[in-house]
C-alpha cells in the first residue's frame, strides 16, 4: 500500500516536471506584437526527409522564423525515402528529397527544386591524376581498375573510399555514376562526409566522393568528362554531370504558411542562404 502510494507520488512529480518543461518552451517564443512585418503569419510546418537537405532546411527555417516569430518550423531527417513517404501520407507538410523522384512517385506530389548539389570525386593533392572519365570512375568503383597506372597515374594500388548504404550521397553517386554496376565490396566504407575527406586527405592512393559544398583544400576534386571542372557554374549549366537536385515536396499546391515559406526559400533572400553551401537555382539578387 505504502509502496504504491510512493510510486504514485513519484509519477506525479514526474508529470509536474514534464508540464513545467512544456511551459518553459512556450515562454521562449516572444510576445506578440514584436514581429517587424505587418502581415501576421502564424502556424507550424513539419519538414522531414533527406539528411542532405536537412542542414539547409534548418538554416532556411531559422531565417524564416526570425522574420515570422509566430511560425514554428520543425525540421527532421529520416532520408529522402521517408520524406517522400511522409508527404504522400500527409504526416509532414513538406518532404525533402536529395534525389530525383522515381516515375511512380511523380504526380503524387508537387515538386520544388530549391537548390542543386554537386558531387565531387576527390583524390589526394599529391596524386598526379586530375582528370577521369565517368567510365573510369565507374570501373574504379566497380573494382575493375585497381591500380592508378591504369588511368595515367603512378604504379600504386587504388584505395576506394565510399559511403555506407542508405547515405544520400552514395545514393546519388550510385545513380549518376554506377548505373547498374555495384560498388565493390572491397571499398573502404566511411560513414560521413568528413570521414571520407579525412581518409582521402591522409592517403595518397585514395579516391572518394563528397558533396561539392564540402570541398576543402586538403583534397583535390577531379575534372570529370572532357575536363569539366567541379564547380557550381558547371553544375548549373548542366555540363558537370555529377549533380543532384534538392527538392521540397508538398502534397497539394502549397497554401498559407507553407506557401509563404517556399516562396521565401526561392526568393533572393532564401537563395542567398542556399548559396553559402550549395548551388542556388534562382537569382540571389
Amino acid at each position: 500500500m505504502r509502496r504504491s502510494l510512493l510510486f504514485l507520488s513519484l509519477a506525479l512529480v514526474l508529470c509536474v516536471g514534464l508540464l513545467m518543461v512544456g511551459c518553459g518552451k512556450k515562454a521562449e517564443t516572444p510576445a506578440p506584437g514584436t514581429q517587424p512585418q505587418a502581415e501576421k503569419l502564424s502556424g507550424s510546418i513539419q519538414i522531414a526527409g533527406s539528411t542532405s537537405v536537412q542542414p539547409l532546411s534548418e538554416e532556411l527555417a531559422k531565417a524564416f522564423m526570425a522574420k515570422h516569430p509566430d511560425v514554428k518550423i520543425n525540421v527532421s531527417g529520416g532520408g529522402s525515402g521517408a520524406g517522400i513517404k511522409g508527404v504522400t501520407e500527409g504526416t509532414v507538410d513538406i518532404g525533402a528529397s536529395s534525389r530525383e523522384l522515381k516515375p511512380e512517385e511523380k504526380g503524387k506530389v508537387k515538386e520544388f527544386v530549391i537548390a542543386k548539389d554537386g558531387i565531387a570525386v576527390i583524390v589526394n593533392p599529391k596524386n598526379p591524376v586530375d582528370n577521369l572519365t565517368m567510365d573510369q570512375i565507374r570501373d574504379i568503383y566497380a573494382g575493375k581498375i585497381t591500380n592508378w597506372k591504369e588511368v595515367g597515374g603512378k604504379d600504386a594500388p587504388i584505395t576506394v573510399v565510399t559511403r555506407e548504404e542508405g547515405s544520400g550521397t552514395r545514393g546519388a553517386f550510385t545513380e549518376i555514376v554506377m548505373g547498374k554496376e555495384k560498388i565493390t565490396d572491397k571499398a573502404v566504407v566511411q560513414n560521413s562526409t568528413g570521414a571520407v575527406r579525412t581518409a582521402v586527405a591522409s592517403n595518397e592512393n585514395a579516391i572518394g566522393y563528397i558533396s561539392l559544398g564540402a570541398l576543402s583544400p586538403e583534397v583535390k576534386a577531379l575534372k570529370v568528362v572532357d575536363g569539366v571542372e567541379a564547380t557550381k557554374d558547371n553544375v548549373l549549366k548542366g555540363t558537370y554531370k555529377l549533380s543532384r537536385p534538392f527538392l521540397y515536396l508538398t502534397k497539394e499546391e502549397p497554401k498559407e504558411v507553407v506557401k509563404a515559406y517556399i516562396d521565401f526559400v526561392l526568393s533572393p533572400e532564401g537563395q542567398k542562404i542556399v548559396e553559402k553551401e550549395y548551388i542556388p537555382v534562382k537569382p540571389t539578387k
Partner: protein
Amino acid sequence: MLGRRIRERFYESLLFISALISVVAVFMIALFVFLEGYPIIQKEGLGNFLLGREWRPLAGIFGIFPMIVGSIVVTLGALVLGVPVSLATAVFLAEFAPKRANMILRPGIELLAGIPSVIYGLFGMTTVVPAIRFIETRYLAHKLPPQMQSGYSVLAAAIILAIMISPTIIAISEDALRAVPRHLKEASLALGATHWQTVVKVLIPTARSGILASIILGMGRAIGETMAVIMVVGNNVLIPTSIFSPCRTLTSNIAIEAAYAAEGPHMQALFATGIVLFVIIIILNLIALRVAGREVMSR
C-alpha cells in the same frame, strides 16, 4: 518512533526503485531490440541471416556472416596483442613495482580507461593506419591484393582495441593477484623458490579464475567497441582472410548504417544485428560470472 520507521521505509523503497530502474531499462532495451529485429530474422530465416555472405540492405539481401567473422577476428587479434602485455603489467604492479613506479603507472593506466573511444579512433586513423599502409605498400606490395594496401585492417583495429582493453585486464587481474592468500606466497618462498618462480608457479595459477574473468570482460569490451573500430577497420563487408584485410564488425555495421537506414527491412536488419551482438555479449558475461563465481566459492 513511528516517523522514524516511515522515513526508514521511504528511503528503503527509494533505493529499491532506483535499483529497479536499471533492471527495467535493461529489460526494456532487450525487449525493444528483439521486437524490432525479430521479424526480419523470421522472414529471412535464422540460418540465412547468420550465414549469408552478402549484405546489400537496399537490395533486400541480409547476411551478416562476414561481420560475425569480422567481430571475432578483430577481438581475437586484440586479445593476442593485449593480454600478454596486460598480464605482465598486472604482475609487475602487484609484485615487483616499487612504490614510486606504482604511483606513476596506476594513474596512467586509469587515464587510459578514461579516454573517449573516438580519440582512440582518431589516433588510429592518423597514425596506426598510415603506418600499416606504409608497411603494406613498401614491403608487401607484391604479396597483397590492392584492397589490402590501404592500411585499414584487422591489424589496425586489433592494435587499437588491445590498448583499449588493457586497463580492464590489468585492474582485475592485479586485484586477483593481490587477493592470493599471503601464506601461499610465503610457503613458496620458504621452500626456496625465487620470487619469479613463486609468481609463475603459485600466484598466477591461484589467481587463474580472476585473470580469466578479466580477459573475458576485456573481450566483451572489444566486441562491443564501435567508434574506434569504425575509424580504422575499413568497414567493407568481406570475410577477412589476412590480418591486413579490412572488414566490418557487428557494432560498426549498426553504427554506420543506422543514421540513414529507412524504416522497414533495413532498420530491422540492423536491430537483428543487435540481437546477435546481444546474445554474444550475454554468453560472454555468463561465462565471466561463472568463472569469477568459481573463484569466490573456492575462497
